[in-house]
């Protein structure tokens, strides 16, 4: 066996039993992760799940209390410098120096990777071209839009051709168009063979970009698998049948059992995540049916319910959201998780407010995305 095949066989990222607590909060509670070369793993979870903490541990920024992590077989705690030479990090908030131009930002990071000045500049120009930033290359970043900053930010973490790329919520806070362009960019990188670990709060994002999805909540891995595997177990899309409070839910469930690809759940309107297309009539119940594809399903459901002779007030189909995944796995919606995270003791009071603002923005964005997908 030659050295090179040995190197190739090593996973690019390997983490075992990562544990990290901040006071009472267990940010990571025994997380195992593995990213193979040229693969993309998506770490999916709600606010406060521990995504950023995991990324920070893997990129040497935080020491885990317990557990080990390796980049290309290098222990990040024992040999942080060697690990750092192999990674590119794009943090949750675009880490660009607003006072410098896009080009200068790139050159600067290249220089800190100890590239010769000429090489740093050449790579910088190449990346500006690839990332569609040539026109703004010599403008100070202060005037850049959010999407441009994000692209520059990703370019900066690629300047030294890292062995592994870490992207922490690469599209959070971007408008749908910038989101689309960042997605395309990541897809191009992925097809070029860049090994990537990305975190996200959006199922559709993980679905689109990742080979394998790892779902985490409260610092624990609660599900993992390919997007198809998760969809088969959790249901790809969702049909919601709204019935009156006194309706015979049993019969509704029985009528629809043949259509579902997973467990049918029943809840009060508003208890399950989603777009909530039904009017918020007090006491109405909603039967949530996981299906692989929602297209053409609504008429089928209506006929099935009519045939069974049960009354219902509405049938709506939608793509499944992170909340559905959470509901299916944990029996509680994702909001519960973020609520607990936000009321947990925390050093900085500003963070909760910032998070709330962020969530508001995201909510709107998800809605827009869903609408767009529906058109």
């Amino acid at each position: 066996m030659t050295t090179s095949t040995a190197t190739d066989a090593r996973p690019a990222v390997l983490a075992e039993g990562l544990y990290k607590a901040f006071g009472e909060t267990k940010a990571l509670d025994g997380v195992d992760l593995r990213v193979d070369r040229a693969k993309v793993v998506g770490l999916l979870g709600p606010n406060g799940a521990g995504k950023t903490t995991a990324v920070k541990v893997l990129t040497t920024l935080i020491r885990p209390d317990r557990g080990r992590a390796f980049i290309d077989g290098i222990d990040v705690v024992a040999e942080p410098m060697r690990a750092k030479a192999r990674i590119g990090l794009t943090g949750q908030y675009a880490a660009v120096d607003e006072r410098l131009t896009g080009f200068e930002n790139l050159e600067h990071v290249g220089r800190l990777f100890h590239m010769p000045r000429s090489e740093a500049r050449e790579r910088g120009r190449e990346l500006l071209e690839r990332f569609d930033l040539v026109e703004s290359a010599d403008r100070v970043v202060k005037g850049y839009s959010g999407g441009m900053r994000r692209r520059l930010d990703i370019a900066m973490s690629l300047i030294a051709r890292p062995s592994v790329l870490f992207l922490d919520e690469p599209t959070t806070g971007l408008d749908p168009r910038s989101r689309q362009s960042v997605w395309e960019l990541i897809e191009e990188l992925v097809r070029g063979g860049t090994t990537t670990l990305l975190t996200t709060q959006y199922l559709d994002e993980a679905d689109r970009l990742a080979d394998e999805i790892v779902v985490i909540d409260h610092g624990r891995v609660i599900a993992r698998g390919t997007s198809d595997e998760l969809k088969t177990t959790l249901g790809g899309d969702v049909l919601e049948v709204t019935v009156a409070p006194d309706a015979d839910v049993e019969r509704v469930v029985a009528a629809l059992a043949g259509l579902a690809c997973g467990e049918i759940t029943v809840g009060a309107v508003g208890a399950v995540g989603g777009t909530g297309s039904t009017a918020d009539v007090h006491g109405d119940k909603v039967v949530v049916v996981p299906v692989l594809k929602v297209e053409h399903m609504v008429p089928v459901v209506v006929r099935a319910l009519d045939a069974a002779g049960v009354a219902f007030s509405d049938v709506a189909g939608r793509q499944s959201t992170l909340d559905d995944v959470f509901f299916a796995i944990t029996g509680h919606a994702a909001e519960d998780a973020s609520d607990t995270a936000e009321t947990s003791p925390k050093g900085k009071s500003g963070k909760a407010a910032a998070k709330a603002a962020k969530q508001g923005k995201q909510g709107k964005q998800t809605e827009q995305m869903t609408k767009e997908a529906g058109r």
Partner: protein
Amino acid sequence: MTAVTETRADPIDLGPARIEEPPTGFIWVIKDSWTEATRHLRAVPRNPELLVFATIQPIMFIVLFVYVFRGSVQVPIDYVQYVIPGIFAQTVLFNSAFTGVGVADDLSKGIIDRLRSLPMYPSAVLIGRTVSDIVRNVVTFAVMLAVAFAIGFRFQGTVMGAVAATGLMFLFSYAFSWIQALIGLSVGSVEAANSAGFIWMFPLTFVSSAFVDVSHMVSWLRPFARNNPFTILTNACRALYNGYPAGSDAWVALAWALGITVVFALLTTRKFAQSTSS
């Protein structure tokens, strides 16, 4: 919306990973510190308003103190010659607060996260920042010196003495910039770094011999005012600018500056190794 036209761009092939072990030793420190310093120095001419504000305040102080207090404050020498070294020292020290604000800004924007993920010499971030901040301070000092000369201040000692006094102030300010960097890393926001950076420097610089004769202060303030390192620094600079013997003050002030630098460089470096945006 129009029909979906799938336009797949070319894959971005980054080529083989470019893994280079970082250099070692002193070269590593110098190289990375300089790279970081250039990040800040490039920005200085782009933010002229920062320099303007950094110079307006000392000019106001010179004019206010000299003309408001000149007649009413009892000091052994001409008040202009007395108070201007104190204002110089105070202003140069106050400028150290910019270091803390800059560090807090980098931290809150996630820039420190990125830098800490790079194979760079860790404290190069702090060395580059503190060293580049000297430049802004030099500009402020030059403007202040010109204003002081315009209202009648003169070096009455040797040129060497004036250079030594100025150097001493800058060493002190450099030492303080490490304290400020620690504050910047600890408080987490630019606004907090700004307040926390200035608040303790007011009593430190005012309860001193910089503006008044310490022996005229209320008795309970006197012990602090006399032993305040800022008093020692001001006394040393005043003696050197005015051409009378500084005695041990210059050496004690130098020792303070070096001591603070060493202690706080260690503390701040340790703090930096755990600093990450929240």
